[in-house]
């Protein structure tokens, strides 16, 4: 990630340890997310419980990042790219921790969905949406490791598709619920799961922005057009005019 070596080698070692911790956290988060989709698709409550338990490991890594970054800021007075590296780690770990929490929430909702044995048709869209965000996460982690700003921008743009999937699923669920009131409970669970995945995509775009800033020293800003007013409301974009 960093180019060239510091004269004081222990400084290099500490930064490397920080970067490796972020990568470890990202890998764990990805695993949690994949497992959550699998648990839902395969109606696997045992897996769901395991995901809920494993969330602690990611919280531990988040605390580890806090301690390491405090130490680096206090004891090394990082400058320029080193400072961006440390601040990026703080922000990225926070976003990863939220993504992992959403995966855990998905697992929590899977349990009642399976136990009440109500499979609703729109649920089939969830794995596709989830996979799209997993791909985004994988690619932004690669961008972080390789210091590739272009890759980060590509992932940042890919979130548009996830937002579209969410809006489409939202409409589908509404229609489905209106057809039969007994479907309302399971559809609401599915709706929350879909919302979680949409938020995970947003957190991944945060990571993209952080990686872009880390690599280039410039903030990532570009307008992403959205369609109808409802779409914009649903995806928190309240500033673009019709």
């Amino acid at each position: 990630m960093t180019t060239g070596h510091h004269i004081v080698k222990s400084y290099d070692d500490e930064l490397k340890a920080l970067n490796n911790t972020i990568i470890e956290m990202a890998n764990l988060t990805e695993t949690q997310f994949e497992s959550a989709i699998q648990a839902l698709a395969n109606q696997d409550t045992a897996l769901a419980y395991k995901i809920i338990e494993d969330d602690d490991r990611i919280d531990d890594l988040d605390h580890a990042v806090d301690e390491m970054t405090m130490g680096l800021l206090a004891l090394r007075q990082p400058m320029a790219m080193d400072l961006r590296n440390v601040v990026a780690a703080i922000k990225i770990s926070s976003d990863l921790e939220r993504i992992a929490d959403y995966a855990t929430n998905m697992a929590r909702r899977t349990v009642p969905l399976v136990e009440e044995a109500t499979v609703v048709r729109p649920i089939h869209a969830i794995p596709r949406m989830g996979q799209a965000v997993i791909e985004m996460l994988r690619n932004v982690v690669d961008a972080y490791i390789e210091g590739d700003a272009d890759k980060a921008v590509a992932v940042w743009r890919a979130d548009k598709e996830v937002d579209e999937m969410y809006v489409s699923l939202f409409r589908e669920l509404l229609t489905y619920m209106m057809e039969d009131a007994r479907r309302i409970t399971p559809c609401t669970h599915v709706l929350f799961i879909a919302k979680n995945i949409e938020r995970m995509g947003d957190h991944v775009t945060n990571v993209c922005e952080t990686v872009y800033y880390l690599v280039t020293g410039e903030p990532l800003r570009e307008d992403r057009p959205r369609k109808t007013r409802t779409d914009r409301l649903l995806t928190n974009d309240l500033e673009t005019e019709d």
Partner: protein
Amino acid sequence: MNMENYRPATATSAPTGMTIDTVLTGEKTIKMESAEETTVKMSTRNLDVFYGDKQALFGIDLDVPERAVTALIGPSGCGKSTFLRCLNRMNDTIDGCRVDGDIRIDQSDIYDRALDVVELRARIGMVFQKPNPFPKSIYDNVAYGPRIHGLAEDKDALDEIVHNALEKAGLLKEVADRLDSPGTGLSGGQQQRLCIARAIAVSPEVILMDEPCSALDPIATAHIEELIDELRENFTIVIVTHNMQQAARVSQQTAFFHLGILVECNSTSEIFTSPSDERTQGYITGRYG
């Protein structure tokens, strides 16, 4: 971290080693890199120092852990250099200076009649702010100490001592082909490393450094700091610095002095992230002047 054999006069000390394992073990302070217990190399108890009628240090109780770097920080005139000079009895050479209290190395009193002060100063070496190489060749600068202490039986043994010292000080590569040239012909950073080599050549146990980088530019300073990181595997180091960022980078234990009092002593990461004393916080955040 097992602290049974180490009775701290002040707060606990722990070298920084920020790896993922050390942080995840749930210990609040950062764990030691080595598995050994912390041994105290030098200690002072109730140390008072007077220059004539003026008292410069008041009842200092401080432990210096072995094979670690202890930094002494504080504003000008706080007594940190006076304290440093107590450790190798350099204050004995100052007229009117009186030292009271207990100072020990490896539990032995350094003022014990049976102890030879010249030998003490070989065990506890010193490096000063302004590099002060002798007006001799690079070789003779480093060989001087071993010669007068009779540390080498023959020329070959002496050569080896000189080469090892220059290498440990990170200077050998740069000067290997001109060991006969004058020490004063080197750059500031190189001269300081020569002085460190000179101190190491007599196999000290402790190295005292009084603002060793104040006269050097940032790159030369970084080279010395990397050298200090390497040296602490084998030597105990006490460094006085008015640059507290340097103390933060280089040390594992930091002691803050103010008006002759030891205000606070703790692991460097604790001091610079959450100091216990208001005065320490005021000093390191630049809040008082």
